[in-house]
């Protein structure tokens, strides 16, 4: 064929003339793409550059001169590096520091006394050398003369450069780099356990006639409605130092890997269940008929039909769970004890030690497995779609009393586990003083008496959830519409798609930290957002962009792709089609996106933990902070408030969806 291409007459390609709609749609797409660049790409870039910026004290940069007791400078100036060598004060590694590093000048003068009449001079030997006198910053080669009492307040500042030193330090510090192994172990074990349980649960609901399937399905989804740290709190009550089931652990502590794994199974269960259940639901009944016609044993059928049919779902679920666990912060913070994991390390480095560079390094380390898990998941999901055929016949399980009872028991155990965790939290929130006074009271709901922002943080959360749902749905759906339905501009659309997929691969902690670096930079005009509700909303929308975007794209793809062509041929503006047809037809998906954003805004901890201010504290953050302060019962109470709020939101969403379906989707029912 290529020789035919060579026969193409010379001259330029026919260039499309754009009509106003095309131009408008491209402009809007650029606007939303810019939003993603500013709220995602720039912060990540700021974080990356932070991770490779290193600070160390360069002692050859500073020169001192000391006077005699009369104030005459008779001796020659001497370099700080020379003094250091003479006194053997600091080795090479001691001089590495952070951006806030300060080195008191007096350390180079062992005989220094602030009462001494001796005068000191200090200057830089290069233009970049900086030191502080009190809070006054001096830079350059001018001599500064100071009396002893003032010299006491002289601090040397480090020289900035870029390089991989931070990473070297990280991997040379076992206390830090051990977390990599810890995180991987935790994520792997949790993934295996969750997948096995979720598969059994999904199998029972799809392939048996066990009773109460609807109820079980509902229970399985409950963990989505609570912050990931809530199971941690329940586990403290059950297995903690005063836990009622502590004996079951046989001396092991719940504070550590055991607690994290149990909690992780709880909060990742619904995600795994949903994916695996979908995979099992689409499998083809005709394969089972063929297997039984060939007299295959149930065991053989299971391994040759069921598992291969669900394998993409299983793999996809495994990587989603792995990703959720390894990036989760709330749970290991509450129940991890001394067992360090990457996500908590970021928090400790930044909030505990104010070592932002090291926080950035840990973030980069955490992004790698998260990015890998994300990439595998995307790859697998693409294969799963290709497997679907329109001719598949859905599998209809036949009743079998013994088997159905066994599956019922299996589901019941898992349901008891999930409801038990929630129940313990609710119970703990209502008792006066665990475990000594089990009488009920509402004392633990007097949040205003505790650290963590009180009831205001709860109302903040609802406000944040509503704003996020409203604005996020508009931006995300409109963005998906533009990228799906505009003409030409292929490169631009592909870049947009890539940006829309990226947030899923970025752990919340990393996003939050990146926001500090980007938005808290005084040189950034967007700095005004820092500490406001707006930045929480922006961060949350970006954090949960991908899933919402995919929901929108799926709905839009189901629409006839010729609608746009028909509308254009009838000379109607693109926005008319959007408002009259696209939005009404996609309304169920739009509602799904908004409830997804609301629920996640209510439960998220990881990204916003770096970004809230005293005025904008959130309920989920309050849970974390109250737990940190030892107010565990109020933390459980607040966690359950989030649960009830989300459950109510879900019910409203359901009612709304039904109502909307009836009015605008009448065409669906003949």
């Amino acid at each position, binding site marked *: *064929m*290529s020789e*035919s*291409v060579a*026969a*193409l*007459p010379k*001259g330029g*390609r*026919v*260039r*499309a*003339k*754009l*009509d106003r*709609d*095309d131009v408008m749609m491209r402009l809007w797409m650029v606007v939303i793409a810019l939003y993603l660049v500013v709220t995602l790409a720039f912060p990540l870039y700021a974080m990356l550059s932070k991770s490779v910026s290193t600070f160390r004290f360069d002692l050859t940069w500073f020169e001192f001169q000391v006077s005699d007791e009369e104030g005459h400078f008779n001796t020659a100036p001497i370099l700080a590096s020379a003094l250091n060598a003479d006194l053997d004060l600091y080795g090479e590694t001691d001089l590495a520091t952070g951006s806030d590093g300060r080195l008191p000048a007096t350390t180079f003068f062992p005989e220094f006394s602030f009462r001494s009449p001796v005068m000191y001079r200090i200057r830089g030997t290069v233009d970049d050398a900086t030191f502080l006198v009190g809070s006054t910053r001096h830079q350059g080669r001018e001599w500064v003369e100071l009396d002893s009492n003032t010299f006491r307040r002289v601090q040397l500042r480090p020289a900035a450069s870029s390089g991989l030193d931070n990473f070297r330090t990280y991997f040379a510090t076992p206390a830090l780099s051990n977390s990599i192994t810890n995180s991987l172990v935790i994520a792997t074990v949790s993934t295996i356990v969750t997948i096995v349980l979720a598969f059994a649960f999904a199998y029972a609901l799809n392939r048996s006639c066990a009773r109460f399937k609807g109820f079980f399905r509902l229970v399985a989804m409950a963990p989505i409605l609570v912050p990931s740290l809530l199971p941690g709190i329940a586990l403290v009550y059950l297995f903690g130092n005063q836990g009622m089931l502590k004996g079951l652990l046989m001396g092991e502590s719940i504070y550590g890997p055991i607690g994290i794994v149990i909690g992780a199974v709880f909060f990742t269960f619904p995600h795994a269940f949903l994916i695996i259940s979908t995979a099992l639901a689409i499998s083809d009944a005709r394969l089972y008929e063929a297997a039984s016609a060939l007299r295959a044993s149930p065991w053989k059928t299971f391994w040759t039909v069921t598992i291969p049919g669900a394998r993409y779902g299983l793999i996809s679920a495994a990587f989603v769970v792995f990703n959720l666990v390894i990036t989760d912060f709330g749970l290991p913070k509450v129940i991890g004890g001394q067992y360090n994991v990457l996500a908590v390390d970021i928090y400790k480095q930044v909030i505990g030690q104010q070592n932002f560079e090291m926080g950035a390094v840990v973030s980069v380390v955490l992004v790698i497995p998260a990015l890998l898990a994300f990439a595998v998941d995307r790859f697998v999901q693409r294969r799963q779609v290709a497997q679907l055929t329109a001719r598949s016949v859905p599998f209809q399980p036949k009743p079998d009393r013994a088997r159905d009872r066994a599956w019922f028991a299996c589901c019941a155990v898992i349901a008891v586990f999930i409801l038990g965790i929630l129940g313990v939290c609710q119970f703990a929130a209502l008792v006066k003083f665990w475990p000594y006074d089990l009488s009920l009271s509402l004392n633990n709901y007097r949040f205003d008496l505790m650290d963590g922002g009180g009831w205001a943080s709860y109302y903040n959360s609802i406000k944040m959830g509503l704003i996020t749902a409203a604005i996020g749905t508009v931006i995300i759906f409109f963005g998906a519409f533009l990228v799906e339905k505009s*003409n030409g501009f292929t490169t631009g659309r592909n870049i947009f798609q890539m940006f829309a997929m990226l947030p899923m691969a970025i752990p919340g902690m990393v996003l939050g930290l990146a926001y500090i670096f980007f938005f808290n930079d005084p040189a950034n005009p967007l700095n005004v957002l820092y500490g406001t509700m707006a930045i929480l909303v922006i961060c949350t929308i970006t954090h949960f962009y991908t899933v919402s975007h995919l929901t929108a794209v799926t709905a839009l793809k189901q629409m*006839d792709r*010729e*609608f746009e*062509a*028909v*509308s*254009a*041929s*009838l*000379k*109607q*503006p693109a926005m*008319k089609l959007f408002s*009259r*047809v696209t939005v*009404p*037809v996609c309304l169920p998906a739009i509602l799904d996106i908004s409830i997804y954003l609301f629920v996640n805004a209510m439960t998220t901890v990881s990204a916003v933990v770096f970004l809230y201010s005293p005025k904008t504290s959130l309920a989920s953050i309050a849970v974390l902070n109250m737990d940190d302060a030892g107010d565990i019962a109020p933390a459980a109470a607040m966690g359950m408030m989030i649960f009830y709020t989300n459950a109510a939101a879900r019910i409203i969403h359901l009612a709304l969806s039904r109502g909307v379906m009836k009015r*605008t*989707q*009448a*065409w*669906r029912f*003949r």
Partner: protein
Amino acid sequence: MTVTLTPDVSLQISGLWKTFGDFVALKDISLEVMDGEFVCFLGPSGCGKTTLLRAIAGLDLQTRGTVIQDGRDVSALPPSQRDFGIVFQSYALFPNLTVHRNIAYGLENQGRTRSEIRARVAELLETMGLPDQSDKYPAQLSGGQQQRVALARAIATSPGLLLLDEPLSALDAKVRVRLRHEIKDLQRRLGVTTIMVTHDQEEALSMADRIVVMNHGVIEQIGSPTAVYRDPVSLFVAGFIGEMNQFDARVVDSGRVRVGQSEFCCRTHDHEAGAAVVAAIRPDEIVPLGTGYRPSPEDVNCEKVTLADMAFLGSFWRCLLHSEDFGREALMADFPTNAVRRLSLEAGQDIHVSLQESGLMAFARDV
């Protein structure tokens, strides 16, 4: 740019190319469509017919070449600035709008009053034979009804050009045949220039004023239905439209070919003597002469065959004929039912048949 056109040319396409990377989907297409004409683009899937239609509509722009509509160069214009109505295979009816609002969709924002729009929609529904369906949703209509609504929507604004992209292929056979006549009838009444894409040769033969036969991105032949059926210019056209027996032959001299041991009078076109060609004849151009027929010397193209198999297909019998000259390939022939009765033909008989001279054609072999 000055464009000189004969007054009744509605659409002029010249030097149109479309490439996707290395793949050439359309290769140097040039074509004129007259005012009020019904033209079919016919070809197997992947031949480029839909690509050509979408280029005319401005939905997928061509790589090179010009499209001139009513004297206006629309080559690079977006669909909204061209003048056409379109019906897709899927109909693309807006599912959440009633039939009325679907048809009225293009009439809004055009300076028409509400009552004008209502009157126009009612008129269109009447024309389409759907007067009492206006408040239904598309999903409540049958496939044929949806088709008509899509057509009504496309012609509501009285466009100068109507584009139909496989409009009938989603329907079942009976509805399809009925709608063929309805669409053709409507087109004739409105006098609207129409281009229809189809892969169904019967549809093209029964509806089109002219057929554009396409293959591998090039136009093989343009002509009236009878012309492309009777005088195909290539083996592809001959084989694609209607049934065709094909067999190897050698040109003896102008007007004569040799097949096996026999010579036949044949339309050799401009093939030289001695050239190896493919001779082709349609099944209905083979006429039965009966069992006891004694060929006279004046009989040309008379061949002795064995009636190997017969299948009754209503108005005719489809028969498989074997003969020494044609080797192992069976000839397919359609004998009228009354001829079979008159000649008392039965499977297994040895009979004579005549290969009609006007129906026997020689083509270059496919390279």
